[in-house]
């Protein structure tokens, strides 16, 4: 068993990281030097998950969200999708394994992956609305959020949701308030089978190896860790029994990257754009200096008068 993290402190404790521990800040730069802290990670072992939704309940209770009561749409997934009030969600897939002809009920806890290279942060136009702490946590700063939804387009995992109430973006914070005092996120604390564990990223990889060995011994020869390099790795990782087919787990992207469109738009795009506009303006100025004003001459007026002579309106 992964040793439990001791119960939370109730005495005032100073946070383990703060604004001066930012390594990335949306639409702005971080005050150097941004020194790296020990990276944290949440490991979700799908092969141990029983889909009980304790993580969802714990998330709601800790973050004081108010998800509305929905309806049954013919599946166990409730709510049917992530919402501004539901930061994490069990997604259930019924998959018949072609090799064994056995049914496998694959249950994946969806939510923010806390990418090392966060697409949301890259896309965000509001300075400081999205930050990445030195321990890897990607967090939304709601005071700075303008609700444009660019983060939604920047995210390779379709995670952020915009609130219809306050028009701000919401997602899992990895319980930054808990991690700040040495706790794990609420979902991890609750998880009955320890399908969710939390610690430093190195520990999590070590633990994942331990789990993958067990899975391989049970015939899941493709068991593996999901820590996609396309986004520089993530601070939420999965152990999958079929790591060769991430898409069978409710469309987990095979090789997620920040969309090239977003890269183009938020990369060269914005510089080229400014450049082009600048050039146009400059060209005008230069032309005026060279060519000077294009003035109507007295002759022109005279010609006009001549043309209109004798005609009375």
């Amino acid at each position, binding site marked *: 068993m992964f040793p*439990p993290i001791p*119960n939370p402190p109730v005495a005032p404790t100073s946070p383990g990281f703060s*604004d001066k*521990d930012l390594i990335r800040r949306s639409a702005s730069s971080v005050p150097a030097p941004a020194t790296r802290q020990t990276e944290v990670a949440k490991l979700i072992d799908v092969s141990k998950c029983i889909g009980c939704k304790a993580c969802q309940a714990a998330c709601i209770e800790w973050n004081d969200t108010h998800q509305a009561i929905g309806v049954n749409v013919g599946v166990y997934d409730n709510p049917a999708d992530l919402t501004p009030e539901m930061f994490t969600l069990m997604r259930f897939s019924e998959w018949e394994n072609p090799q064994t002809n056995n049914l496998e009920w694959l249950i994946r806890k969806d939510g923010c992956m806390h990418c090392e290279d966060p697409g949301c942060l890259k896309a965000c136009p509001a300075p400081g609305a999205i930050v990445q702490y030195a321990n890897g946590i990607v967090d939304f700063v709601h005071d700075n959020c303008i609700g444009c939804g660019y983060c939604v387009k920047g995210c390779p995992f379709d995670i952020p949701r915009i609130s219809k109430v306050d028009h701000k973006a919401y997602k899992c914070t990895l319980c930054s308030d808990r991690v700040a005092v040495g706790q794990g996120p609420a979902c991890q*604390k609750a998880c009955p089978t320890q399908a969710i564990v939390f610690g430093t990223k190195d520990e999590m990889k070590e633990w994942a190896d331990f789990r993958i060995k067990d899975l391989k011994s049970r015939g899941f020869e493709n068991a593996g860790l999901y820590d996609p390099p396309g986004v520089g790795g993530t601070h939420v990782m999965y152990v999958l029994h079929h790591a060769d087919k991430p898409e069978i787990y409710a469309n987990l992207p095979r090789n997620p990257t920040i969309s090239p469109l977003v890269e183009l738009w938020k990369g060269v795009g914005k510089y080229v754009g400014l450049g082009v506009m600048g050039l146009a303006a400059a060209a005008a100025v230069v032309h005026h200096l060279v060519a000077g004003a294009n003035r109507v001459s007295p002759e022109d007026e005279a010609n006009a008068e001549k043309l209109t002579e004798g005609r009375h309106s």
Partner: protein
Amino acid sequence: MNMELSRRAFLLTAGAGVAGTALGAFGFGDVEAAYAAAIRPFKLVNTTETRNTCTYCSVACGIILYSKGDLRKGETAEITYIEGDSDHPTNRGTLCPKGAALLSIVKSKTRLTYPMVRRPGSDRFERISWDEALDKIVRVLKDDRDKNFIALNEAGVTVNRWVTSGILAASATTNETAFATYKVMRSTGMLAFDNQARV
């Protein structure tokens, strides 16, 4: 007395795999550090902890109630959060979706707060005082017992039973409540006396 157990917990007796997380180690540098703009101040600070047991299934997970105010000091206490007890051998701090939402059952909009009576044929509950309610109940019980108590059966054997009123004992109450209930009800000779063991 329940608070004295040290929090060393299971870190000493870690199971297989890695030997406990180094969480405490990362980040903690500057003691003066203020919470970052995005980080909520830790909401359990200055709450009172009370060890309790989850009310639902018989796994009986250990939980900690966090409250504003301390009953042990004779104050009124409002429970503000409930979380699993990491020191508990069975659940190790974990909770199921019911346990993880215990706070919302304690604070449920449909908690009962006052004695109510629904009069015969009426379509609503009306408030009633505890005294009135208890006297009504005892009156009905006694009248029925006096009327239908069986001291001797046909064969003349002393049987001292009462089978025209009954009780369904709780399943979520303590052993102590159970024993008080047993004494009070059995002493009346009541036989239609059951609990939820079956469902």
